[in-house]
């Protein structure tokens, strides 16, 4: 008598007792089914919102980039003409160049300042003061950029501004902050960085808190002190946070509008005109919504390319524990 069971009669590994198995399978399937429905129900508002307010406008603006439309008359199809005109427009070219320069300088300052202050606050401050500084540095971010810019405009007025008055106390002559290309660019960057570094600061605070103390202790035993510890321990272990902070800072800086629009209206000349400003001007001042969409499409492609490059580079420079 063979003890082996013929293959046909061998019970399947996943087989379950007859009746309860059927019930169980049915019950699990029903559960999965109802869970799927529940998931869709919970996701529906987000999907609907994203579809209505993000996806449809994105598709519509891409389509609009191939039309000439002034809001009032019916749109007319113009093929790639809008893209051709946009590329040839010197103001658009300068504004894109300004935006890139702005991103490089503003993001570097924003991240550098945020990181330095985060290390200082995290390491040198007592706990109660840490809480204060976290709030204080984050506070400008919750203010309206337009209101801040109006306020700053008064501060940096050449004749009657507080900044020049303070400078005059130490014998420095009035600086034409908002009426020279260099001065206005400096003020726009300064105001933007002041208002936005708080977010990067909070990210870095979180990142610093997640670095194990043992790592620093091990580095100390190995003889690392002061800035060497930060260079060889803090920065590598903070690199995932730095990646996130830089991606967000770059995307935000590429879309800068409020500060230059309120502070300088993009001037003098085109010195502080940014890509989003020319989108606004094309659409709402020149009533060329097709061209505005074409500029928007180009800006989106640039943002996507830069972000993709950042993630690609991150494979080499970001260290995950």
């Amino acid at each position, binding site marked *: 008598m063979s003890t082996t069971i013929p293959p046909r009669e061998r019970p399947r590994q996943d087989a379950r007792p007859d009746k309860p198995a059927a019930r169980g399978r049915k019950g699990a399937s029903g559960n999965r089914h109802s869970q799927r429905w529940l998931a869709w129900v919970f996701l529906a508002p987000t999907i609907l919102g994203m579809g209505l307010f993000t996806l449809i406008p994105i598709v519509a603006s891409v389509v609009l980039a191939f039309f000439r439309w002034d809001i009032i008359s019916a749109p007319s199809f113009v093929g790639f003409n809008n893209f051709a005109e946009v590329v040839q427009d010197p103001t658009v070219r300068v504004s894109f160049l300004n935006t890139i320069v702005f991103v490089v300088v503003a993001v570097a300052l924003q991240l550098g300042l945020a990181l330095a202050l985060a290390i200082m606050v995290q390491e040198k401050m007592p706990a109660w003061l840490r809480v204060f500084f976290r709030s204080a540095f984050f506070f400008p971010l919750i203010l309206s950029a337009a209101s801040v810019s109006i306020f700053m*405009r008064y501060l940096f007025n050449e*004749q009657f501004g507080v900044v020049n008055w303070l400078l005059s106390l130490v014998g420095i002559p009035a600086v034409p902050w908002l009426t020279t290309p260099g001065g206005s660019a400096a003020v726009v960057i300064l105001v933007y960085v002041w208002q936005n570094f708080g977010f990067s600061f909070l990210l870095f605070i979180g990142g610093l808190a997640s670095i194990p103390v043992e790592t620093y202790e091990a580095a100390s035993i190995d003889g690392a002190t002061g800035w060497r510890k930060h260079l060889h321990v803090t920065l590598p272990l903070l690199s995932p946070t730095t990646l996130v902070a830089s991606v967000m800072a770059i995307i935000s800086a590429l879309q800068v509008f409020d500060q230059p629009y309120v502070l300088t209206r993009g*001037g003098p000349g085109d010195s502080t005109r940014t890509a989003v400003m020319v989108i606004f001007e094309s659409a709402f*001042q020149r009533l060329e919504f097709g061209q505005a969409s074409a500029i928007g499409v180009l800006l989106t492609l640039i943002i996507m390319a830069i972000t993709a490059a950042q993630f690609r580079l991150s494979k080499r420079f970001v260290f995950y524990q």
Partner: protein
Amino acid sequence: MTGAINGQLRQITRRAALGALGAGIIGASVASWPRLSGTDIPGRGDNSLSIAILGTAADAAARQRAIDAFSSLHPDIKVKVQAIQAVDWKDFFTKILTMVAAGTPPDVVYVATEGAQLFAEKLAHPLDEYIRRDAADMREFFSDVHPSLVEAFMYKGSLYQLPMDWNAANMYYNTAAFAEAGLDRPADDWTHLDFRNNLAAMRKARPSDFTPYYWTNRLFGGVVPWLYANDTSFLKETRSTGGDWLWDGFYASDPSRSLRSGGYQWLEPNANDDRVFESFDYLRGLVKDGLGVRPEEGGGNSLVGLFASNRIGTTPAGGYWVQGLHEAGMAEDGFDVQFFPRWKTQRHQFGTAGYAMMKTAKDKDAAWEWIKFSSSRQAMELIFPNPATTPARRSMVNEKLYAGKGPAHWKVFYDTLDRFPTTGPIPAPPQQAAVETALMKNVSLAVSGDEQQLKQALASMQRDLEIALRRQP
């Protein structure tokens, strides 16, 4: 077999029935729900005559007395004033355009010179037929309003608005600063060189914390008054034919009748004109010598406060400034006003505003009744109770309006039109917003560097204006 069928039937019955019920409820709700549009916003969907003005809710409330007076005359017409807050006229027009795009345009819009041709070209309905129809009623209005103001609202031979208020760029001066510098009131025909000498005298008297000439970088009151005085502009100004029906009908005996046309046209840039260079060079000299400020783009918000605190010697502005200075605490004899300095001419720049009837107005007759009523003396006295602007009616620009507020020479305001009948409106073609941007963005550079930078800025302005004007309507 039967069991299987029964089971399937049971399954279909339970799931499909519930599903069908749910789908049915949703479908019925969707089908029975009226399409959501901008008109569903409370207050928008009724048949009121909707009137859009630039301002705050307080400005809308200030018109209530005029609305009440209108309602007593026309109880069948319900009026709703919608105040739209905006930084400037350009911003206001943008918001009106978005209302048009949203399918909820107002019936009547208060439009300034800056947007007159944009509205005439694309959005507004001409008033010609109504003015002809009610010519007897309108005769009194036109007899009280200078034709220069009316001509600003002529476009290709048709009239699109009736001027309600206006302001010319006259020159305000601080009497204390003038006295301190040993200066008398300037003569009516003072020149741009006299003006510069006065600034130099004020600078000598007050070397610091004081600006002899403060000016803004805007379409009104910026560089344009100097261009007009030098008999030029940054756009080539031409006139349309037509409009004789209006001029012959209402202004036949006016001394300036021969100057009138079917409306202004600005079709080409003119920033490379020699006199444009000359005018900018003059301003550049003022900045270089510390007599005038380098103007910020769109500046001017702090101007009233600075002038009222005696930190500014002179600035170009219109009658609209009087109320602001009074509210800022400036005594009526603390300032005065004079014509803009003469150069090759003494042509002034002005801006005016009035109601435009939209093409899409639901009830155009009702819209016209509001426009006609608003132009009446009764309505204008209710709308303009103080010198926060200059009323278009000559008879309303009187001693009573300026009593206790100044300036001593308030007659300068309306005399500007009488003394200089070629005085013209802000150059504002239908592409005004783009044109204004092209001008503003190059002014600061033009007046704050060397001669080479000025030339480059004007070349850039010419190029930007070409782009702005490339699509003629």
